[in-house]
């Protein structure tokens, strides 16, 4: 399994042609207490860089962009009842959605863990 990162602070795990997407620990720290996550509909086709989800704290709502182009195959049902999972386990149980990978080439342009770490440190 390979993990990629975007400069919008999303992480992407790729396994068997399916990408699992969430936001990074750094992102949840910036957002503060998450109170709600609006997830896309299963079956939706979303282009890279377009709005896929919305993550809300008390005083802010932030768009989460699709890191790659693909079709939504599953969303995390646990987030509806327990949005705090995004704070407690952002890069694990707090995942947002799974999607197909329309163009493997898009993955190559994302960051790996080390580059993301450097990217965050430079912020």
């Amino acid at each position, binding site marked *: 399994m390979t993990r990629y990162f975007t400069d919008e602070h999303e992480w992407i795990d790729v396994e068997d042609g399916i990408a699992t997407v969430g936001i990074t620990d750094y992102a949840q720290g910036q957002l503060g*207490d998450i*109170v*709600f996550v609006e997830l896309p509909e299963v079956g939706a086709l979303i282009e890279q860089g377009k709005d896929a989800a919305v993550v*809300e*704290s*008390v*005083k802010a709502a932030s768009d989460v962009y699709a890191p790659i182009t693909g079709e939504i195959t599953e969303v995390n049902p646990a987030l509806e009842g327990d*949005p*705090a999972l995004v704070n407690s386990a952002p890069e694990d149980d707090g995942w947002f959605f799974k999607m197909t990978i329309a163009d493997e080439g898009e993955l190559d342009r994302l960051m790996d863990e080390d580059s993301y770490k450097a990217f965050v440190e430079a912020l």
Partner: protein
Amino acid sequence: MTAPNQSGWRPEMQVAENGLLGGPATTTGNRALMLEEPLLFEIGRADVTGVDLPVVDASAPNRLAGLERNAAIGLVGLTEPETVRHYTRLSRQNYGIDLGFFPLGSCTMKHNPRLNEKVARLPGFADVHPLAPQATVQGALEVISQLGEWLCKLTGMPAVAMSPKAGAHGELCGILAIRAAHEARGDAREVVLVPESAHGTNPATAAFANYRVEDIPATPEGRVDVAALKARLEVGGPDKCDVAAVMITNPNTCGLFEKDFREIADAVHAAGGYVYCDGANFNAIVGKVRPGDLGVDAMHINLHKTFSTPHGGGGPGSGPVVLSDALAPFAPLPFVRRQADGAFYLVEEEHREERGPSFGRMTAFHGQMGMFTRALTYMLSHGADGLKQVAEDAVLNANFILRSMEDILHAPFAASGPCMHEALFGDKDFTGGLSTLDVAKGLIDEGYHPMTVYFPLVVHGAMLVEPTETESKAAIDQFITAFRAVVERALAGDEALKQAPYYAPRRRLDETAAARKPRLVFEG
């Protein structure tokens, strides 16, 4: 540091034992005049009423077609003495202008004259039906007409739409008139430019009217970047401008007058666009400058800000919109006109010719009459000379606060010159993890309603202080003393400030829990 209070109370008088207020805990949780109050649904009963009504025979024949409401509704009642006490006790957990200084930036919390309240309650205004035959409501129509005339003269604009219900509704009115005007000339456009510092209603309004919202960049001194704006108007080349309008607040939300407004307006007009001015801050310039002289096409006026109608815990407001000649034909229905014989009448849907290209109706009936009578009363009280003094004193008070704070509190635009009616500060030098929120809560303990916080978004940890003109110098001096004291604590990293307020009816409330598991009605 002591902030002397007119009551003679001094901080050292506090007894520091057994809890924050001193003294032993009480059985009831009340502390003398600080009274706890249960929910209506915990004290009311379904079979209690505070109104004497005839008892109607329930078995009498009715015309309800079998739709009787048989199941319990779930409402509860209180007798009159209990009702008066419930709400009076609740009222004492509220801060209002009547209690003290309320420097909430961009909201203009000025004194609400009680004459306005008295006049609005005259039966000739309060007990009149909106659809009564127009010959029987000539005085009501004349109030609308007179108020409209005042608004036109004060703004230097030729026309006014009176029906919008609040500021944001007025914005919508202006933007819809702009869309209608462009469509009428076959020049539908797609973009509205809004500065980042704008009120959230501006982009929300433009988006509602199906426009794409783009940011206008700001200069480091806190004003619209005219060069960038002009460059944006030229995108696509001559005769291809896709910008329908710019929405600019003037004075802007950084508290500064947009000195290049006329130049901006000329450029927008040359590109075929219109200029919407958010008039939320008209209080600063009423009687000093007329927006019509600056090239404005549409501007809403919050009667509950500049013209002193009460804010009422969040409305009702009233948002008449003054319009240029270019936009006036598209104004919403209804509007008041005058016949040759002097009688007033309403132009409504049925007047197919007179209504012209009006974009239609925005609300039932004719607008916020109860606010019109209050605002007109206020204008007559102040007159042209008094309103000019209103602007001057509001601006003077704000500058006095700016210059009394800037030595210890980051004032990002202090070097840009005088501010208008509000002074803007940021949290730059706070230490120990203290924030603007902590300063706000600290001011609550000092007996003040805090300033507007975290708005505008262009300044980190923004604190927007609007004193208004209805404060005495003594009140402002005391506020400055208290504000400086709280700011000093934030600069010094005083941990105790993180838990403020200590003395309000409630300590900090858990907004995260409220949003995660919303409880919006009483269950039980």
